[in-house]
């Protein structure tokens, strides 16, 4: 029998398929597939107070991908805990809450509140601009990344997965810094910073000018980073970036990921998480893998 179980930082996922932050809504995605099929639901970023995000247009299409500049719109942690979490809790899947902030204090405030909530893990999105340090993202600098990890780790009473940005010279440096600072895992990659110009309107397509590139276009960069980080740290890795098929998921697992997230694929095909799960099972059966560990070890 093929087993899909995987233990991420002490939390047992029944399968390695999770939803990439910002591309899943329990109510709306749940209209297309059964949320109970997910290994974990990773929510969109939640901050200490409600954020409005950016004006529209927030979405632009790119070759084999898309750009988004949603700007982390969310109703804030209190509203999340009161209104969204109870609905999510009805399902038999693990709940991972993506956390965002503009200062370390803001992250900590959310982490503190989530520690008492009925969730399983937190995913800390450190791609947000650090407004205290000139707006450079927390994840772009190993010292800052370590600092924020340490502070959150010291107050969070759930596992914390640090979500890394790919827009750095050396991702292994950041991964090693957050591991040393106590991260229980890392997830990678977030979006690549990109831009699209409408040459007829003579302006960027996105209101915000720049946005995050996601989708199959970025997969080779993501696979490379998962491969590098796997060889640099020993904590669990959630791999993502352009996964469209079960074969893609297997590629991330083989590169060293313990679990995977499905993002843009779910916007392009709303049933993608379940389809990819089934394709992964088929891949495992046809190629003689009985569990995920065997895929992960195939190339080590």
């Amino acid at each position: 029998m093929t087993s899909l179980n995987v233990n991420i930082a002490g939390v047992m996922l029944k399968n390695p398929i999770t939803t990439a932050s910002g591309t899943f809504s329990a109510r709306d995605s749940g209209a297309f597939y059964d949320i109970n099929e997910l290994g974990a639901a990773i929510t969109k970023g939640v901050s200490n107070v409600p954020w409005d995000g950016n004006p529209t247009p927030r979405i632009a299409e790119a070759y084999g991908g898309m750009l988004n500049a949603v700007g982390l719109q969310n109703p804030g942690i209190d509203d999340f805990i009161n209104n969204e979490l109870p609905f999510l809790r009805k399902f038999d899947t693990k709940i991972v809450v993506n956390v965002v902030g503009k200062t370390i204090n803001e992250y900590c405030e959310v982490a503190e509140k989530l520690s008492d909530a009925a969730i399983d893990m937190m995913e800390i999105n450190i791609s947000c601009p650090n407004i205290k340090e000139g707006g450079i993202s927390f994840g772009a600098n190993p010292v800052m990344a370590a600092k924020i990890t340490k502070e959150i780790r010291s107050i969070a009473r759930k596992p914390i997965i640090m979500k890394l940005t790919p827009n750095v010279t050396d991702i292994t440096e950041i991964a090693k810094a957050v591991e040393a600072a106590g991260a229980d895992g890392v997830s990678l990659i977030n979006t690549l910073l990109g831009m699209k110009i409408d040459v007829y309107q003579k302006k960027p397509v996105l209101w915000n000018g720049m946005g995050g590139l996601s989708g199959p276009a970025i997969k080779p960069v993501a696979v490379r980073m998962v491969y590098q980080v796997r060889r640099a740290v020993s904590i669990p890795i959630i791999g993502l970036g352009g996964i469209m098929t079960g074969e893609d998921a297997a590629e991330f697992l083989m590169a060293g990921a313990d679990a995977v997230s499905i993002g843009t694929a779910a916007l392009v095909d709303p049933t993608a998480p379940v389809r990819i799960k089934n394709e992964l099972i088929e891949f495992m059966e046809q190629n003689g893998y009985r569990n995920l560990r065997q895929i992960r070890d195939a190339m080590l």
Partner: protein
Amino acid sequence: MIKKIIAAELIENKEIADKVYRMTMKAPQISESFCPGQFINVYLNDKSMLLPRPLSISSVCEDTVTLIYKVVGKGTRKIAAYCPGEVVRVSTSLGNGFRLEDVFNELGGNSKVIALVGGGMGVAPLIGLARMLIKEKKVRGLSDEVVQIIAVVGFYEEPILLEALEECCHRVYFATENGTEGFKGNVIQLIEQNDIRADYYMACGPKPMLRAIAGRCENTGISIQVSLEERMGCGYGACVGCVCKTREKGTSKTKLKKVCSDGPVFFGNEVVWDD
């Protein structure tokens, strides 16, 4: 509501005006529970373009669904290239359409007029809307003396769907901006200069038109439902790409709603128009 991605067979895909196409497909999963104002996602075969194209359902008939769309870019160009007999991947109905209940609940008494206002491609969903209003009138036993449906539509240059509107509306007023046909001007000018009055408005078109007409309604205390458009990612509520600012009833508190899944139809007085 369970939603699905389905493969629908094309029955027709024909240019009916300059760059404007009528596409009819066999899709009972869509037609059987249609509410006017809803849209569907059309997914492309071209693998360089991943995002679906949202298109309003113009009308349904038995097990078929008709879309009216304009070729404006690469995606709609691909859609226009599909041939009858081919199969298109589309979603089942998305979003919340016009609230017909609300219209009839509000319109008491006699000689009431419902005005369907459309600009450009915004005219497309008015066909299905008008037909559904007629059905609803019948169900409620409301004669033309009690409720009349009129259409007020504007175009840049070439009018579309006038005949279809005429078949189901009491009267159709139309304008073209450059004056090639009909009234010369925009929809608002058309309304003003013809002194068109109605007791309920239902509108679909470019944002400036919607803003202007919603403003008029606001001033005169008349109800209006508007169908908004916003650049979309997923089209079903997962990406939060397509928001519009709304006001919570009776408060000054604003809330960002998703055009695709909370809308695309909103009450005019709910929308914060100023940005």
